[in-house]
């Protein structure tokens, strides 16, 4: 395998001349692959990737998202998931197939303004996304601070095998619940939450730059007054 070649691209930039299927964020014309977005292109032989630097959240089945209930009717809650479609959480998902609107008032479970952690059950662009809250830890989030970041920067906030988010969690003693849609809920000791939020904002601001993990490590150690080595990025359990 050759070395990864990385460069900044804008829409319409030629990425590679190759007879391949265009990966996400690119398109093919003739025998060449062009970028569709402002981003960083990575080329390794014929493997091409474009990491976008901006963009809205496009729902994907099985993504964990954090949404705010904006409305409810007799059969479903309507949830704002920070995307271009509102999401629907059907009442039958919570109360079972035998749910009937005469029996139960939906607002007893989730009301307008509630923040919920949910999974995208179904989505294609011709229909609005459907959510489900059946699964461990899914459902209403009762406390914490809501932070919104750009959805394209979520992978950097999580880091490889969760290294970045776990480093922030361990250093500040907080817990981050990260939705793929760019919504983060921070819980934990109230005096440490502002520091965790600052680190999240730092990740968002510098997500496309090299050496981000070290920067966040140094930032946290400076703020907490400890040595950087005590704030080690999480490397996974087996290492």
């Amino acid at each position: 395998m050759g070395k990864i070649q990385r460069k900044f691209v804008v829409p319409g930039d030629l990425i590679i001349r190759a007879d391949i299927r265009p990966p996400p964020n690119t398109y093919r014309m003739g025998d060449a692959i062009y970028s569709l977005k402002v981003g960083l292109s990575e080329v390794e032989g014929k493997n091409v990737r474009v990491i976008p630097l901006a963009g809205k959240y496009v729902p994907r089945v099985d993504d964990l998202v954090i949404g705010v209930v904006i409305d409810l009717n007799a059969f479903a809650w309507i949830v704002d998931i920070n995307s271009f479609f509102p999401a629907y959480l059907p009442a039958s998902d919570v109360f079972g197939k035998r749910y009937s609107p005469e029996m139960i008032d939906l607002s007893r479970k989730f009301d307008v303004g509630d923040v919920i952690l949910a999974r995208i059950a179904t989505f294609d662009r011709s229909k609005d996304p459907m959510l489900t809250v059946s699964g461990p830890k899914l459902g209403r989030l009762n406390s914490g601070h809501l932070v919104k970041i750009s959805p394209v920067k979520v992978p950097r906030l999580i880091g490889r095998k969760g290294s970045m988010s776990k480093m922030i969690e361990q250093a500040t003693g907080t817990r981050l619940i990260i939705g793929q849609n760019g919504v983060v809920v921070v819980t934990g000791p109230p005096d440490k939450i502002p520091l965790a939020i600052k680190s999240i904002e730092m990740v968002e601001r510098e997500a496309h730059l090299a050496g981000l993990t070290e920067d966040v490590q140094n930032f946290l150690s400076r703020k907490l007054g400890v040595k950087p080595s005590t704030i080690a990025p999480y490397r996974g359990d087996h290492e």
Partner: protein
Amino acid sequence: MVKLIDKKNLRVDGRKLDELRPIKLQVGVLKNADGSAYIEWGRNKIMVGVYGPKECHPKHMALPDRALLKCRYHMAPFSVDERKPPQPSRREIELSKIIREALSPAIVLEEFPRTAIEIYVEVLQSDGSSRVASITAASAALADAGIPMRDLVAGCAVGKVDGKIIADISDIEDKEGEVDLPVAYMPNLDLVTLLQSDGALTKQEFEKAFKLALEKCRFVYDIQRNALLEGFMKTKKEVE
């Protein structure tokens, strides 16, 4: 009859025949919009904000197979010498339409059916060729919003003044000159998305002017590229 070009082939503002006015373009200038750009093209000052893709309202306007592109070109009351009434004029409605049509071939609208993409162009100060300046800034703002585009759209106006073909028509050259020929162009795809002509040119003159316009569009495209690079890389370090 106003004399617009002197004996040394210099124009009223001292420019050479094929010289553009200074252009300054910045992206990501507005925090609340999904994407934004600010352009200073000579004395033109134009702010563009982009929202989207977002839910389409009113719902009946949504298209089942692609996103609806909305565009509003608006001139501030203080953008011209004499106060301009703030309601949309005939000219502003027309320019909104041509800006929309100049940008829509570049945007991958099919990727977001039933949604809307909104472009708001606010002209703070106007000095001729504001439509191409608006298209240039709007295309950078769309890229800034992360909306998938096949190419950036760069614009430039050329024209004929005192019998000579010149690049980048200013306000007085537009009013007193013979021809104004705005062009918007996608340089990588080599496709023209806007071509208007106000005035008559011979075939030879048109070919010369059109060639000049494309050359200047490529120059404007480089400015757009650099603005995007600067906008996204402004935090201290370089890419790995």
